[in-house]
């Protein structure tokens, strides 16, 4: 019985047994599906298998990359009309713009609407961040033709989410390409480079540039308007990449910055240094307090309340924190009581931690509870299963997404590989953060340089109010450094870091994106 022998050999070799591998092996048993509450996965059709043994190890590199791709055709019913589209899942060889030297074999999944004229059809490259995160979050959660229905905000720990048609897909306005960074998904460096060669702010952005140039050439899309869409660290990558693409003459028409960390020097939580102001977090605390009914007086309109908190952060709290950090001023009791009313955190909390970090806020707002970092509306008992890794809002979605990406690739997109899909790698341990002469990256100069080269470049910044990882107002403060710009638009809605997981937020962001795509290649 060969499958059993393979099973036991695998178990001895690697513990724990990856869930995806188990699922694959169990599918190989055949017959008798349907147990476990879910519907049986559809049978795997014979066809494409990439036999390359991809690896996410720091020193791994490919000797013989392949550009093999699994192509499938699909239909999506939307508001009475049907979109026919093609999905392509596979690899392209990113070769350095200029020298032509092969750098890395990047894994991607592209969804393209059938029967469109390439020159007029926008093309958007999506990626998550980490660094070290595969792009499965945007791929499965946001604007692809199909998405996972997560029901966020929710505290239910489930093993899987249903995959549904996506009424908010961007497929009607742009083709979508989800790209995985080197050492994530199934992307790997090409010899003599190793994965680690691309684990730095600059080398990572450049290999994305090289991938985009290759995708355009391989698919005859050089004339298409193009957009890069990054989330979190991916937004910083998008800004650095924008300058790389413009300078290289590849060209770019739009940048979407979702829940961005544009300057690692300005976010008070990532370095936990005493000298960095947390004023950018205050409006997110206010939104969170309003959600839990702890803001006083209770706001009638949460949007107006958040805007008011932004003004308060600029005019009152920000200057007071700056003076507190500089040692030139102490907070007065009036300000403390106003902060307490706005944020729901007690005056005692504000007195003991005037430059209030999100970690402290998340632990102290609700007794015995830990608020989510990615979505503060999702709270769990401080010693319970939701809080075990420090963020209830990520714990509720993480495992089902990992399961779903493996199922999507093998079962829907006909892409099978002998290697696992790496949803999260340890690239971050090795990352070279240095950029433009600073220890930690600040991508606002990159954005300014991209806008200098291309004054028509459109930038859309999207944030969720309840995101306590990359707070909406810190993004606004970072972008404010650019000065007034007719092509830069800021849009924020209720919701967390992965704002799109909330149905209402995704609808609102889809509307803003529709407007953004209409303005591509127009004069400001």
């Amino acid at each position, binding site marked *: 019985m060969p499958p059993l022998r393979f099973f036991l050999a695998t178990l001895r070799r690697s513990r724990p047994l990856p869930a995806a591998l188990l699922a694959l092996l169990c599918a190989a048993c055949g017959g008798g599906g349907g147990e476990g509450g879910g519907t049986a996965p559809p049978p795997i059709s014979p066809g494409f298998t990439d036999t390359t043994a991809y690896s996410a190890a720091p020193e791994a590199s490919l000797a013989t990359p392949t550009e093999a791709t699994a192509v499938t055709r699909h239909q999506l019913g939307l508001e009475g009309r049907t979109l026919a589209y093609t999905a392509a899942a596979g690899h392209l060889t990113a070769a350095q713009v200029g020298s032509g030297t092969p750098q890395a074999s990047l894994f991607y999944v592209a969804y393209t609407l059938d029967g469109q004229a390439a020159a007029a059809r926008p093309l958007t490259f999506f990626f998550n961040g980490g660094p070290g995160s595969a792009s499965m979050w945007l791929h499965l959660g946001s604007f692809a033709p199909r998405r996972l229905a997560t029901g966020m905000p929710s505290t239910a720990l489930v093993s899987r989410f249903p995959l549904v048609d996506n009424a908010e897909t961007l497929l009607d306005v742009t083709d979508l390409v989800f790209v995985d960074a080197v050492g994530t998904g199934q992307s790997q460096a090409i010899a003599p480079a190793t994965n680690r060669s691309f684990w730095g702010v600059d080398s990572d952005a450049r290999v994305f540039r090289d991938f985009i140039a290759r995708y355009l050439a391989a698919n005859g899309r050089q004339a298409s308007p193009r957009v890069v869409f990054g989330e979190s660290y991916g937004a910083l990558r998008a800004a650095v990449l924008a300058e790389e693409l413009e300078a290289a*003459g590849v060209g770019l028409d739009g940048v979407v910055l979702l829940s961005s960390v544009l300057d*690692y020097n300005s976010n008070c939580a990532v370095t936990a240094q005493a000298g960095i102001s947390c004023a950018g977090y205050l409006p997110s605390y206010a939104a969170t307090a309003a959600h839990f009914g702890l803001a006083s007086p209770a706001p009638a309109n949460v949007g107006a309340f958040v805007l008011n908190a932004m003004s308060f952060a600029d005019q009152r709290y920000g200057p007071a924190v700056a003076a507190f950090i500089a040692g030139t001023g102490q907070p007065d009791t009036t300000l403390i009581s106003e902060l307490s009313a706005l944020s729901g955190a007690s005056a005692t909390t504000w007195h003991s931690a005037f430059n209030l970090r999100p970690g402290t806020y998340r632990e102290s707002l609700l007794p015995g509870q830990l608020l989510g970092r990615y979505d503060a509306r999702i709270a769990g008992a401080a010693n319970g299963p939701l809080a075990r*890794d420090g963020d209830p809002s990520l714990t509720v979605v993480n495992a089902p997404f990992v399961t779903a990406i493996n199922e999507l690739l093998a079962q829907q997109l006909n892409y099978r590989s002998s290697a696992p899909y790496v949803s999260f790698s340890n690239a971050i341990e090795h990352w070279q953060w240095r950029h433009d002469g600073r*220890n930690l990256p600040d991508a606002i100069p990159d954005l*300014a340089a991209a806008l200098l080269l291309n004054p028509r470049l459109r930038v859309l910044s999207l944030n969720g109010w309840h995101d306590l990882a990359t707070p909406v107002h810190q993004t606004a403060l970072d972008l404010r450094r650019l000065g007034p710009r007719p092509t830069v638009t800021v849009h924020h809605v209720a919701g967390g870091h992965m704002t799109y997981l909330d149905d209402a937020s995704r609808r609102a962001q889809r509307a803003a994106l529709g407007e953004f795509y209409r303005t591509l290649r127009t004069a400001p």
Partner: protein
Amino acid sequence: MTCRSLCMILAAALSAGTAAAQPDLAVQRADPWLPPHARVPDGRPSPAGPALQALALDKLRRRFEAADAPGFGTLSRSQAQGAGLGFVAEHFDRIDAARSGHISFEELRRYLARPR
């Protein structure tokens, strides 16, 4: 024992193992996160306004100087193309107002300052 039932037992064992206190680094190190050794901001204020614009231009100047390997202070179209500075190669004729076949950084700067 059938293959299928063995599978179910293993799946149960796997999910029990996951529920135990196995730390999930994808959650613990979720973006944005810095490893402790990297938590060293330089403490300098991030530039805005004219200082930011100067920095943006400096980025381009560094690219220009890297492409100008011999250090002549000028670039030809093919030098720019070979160095990956495709923007300069593509806009070369408009940047090269003097039609000399070589452009200086000052010519590039003037081109960027014009309304386009």
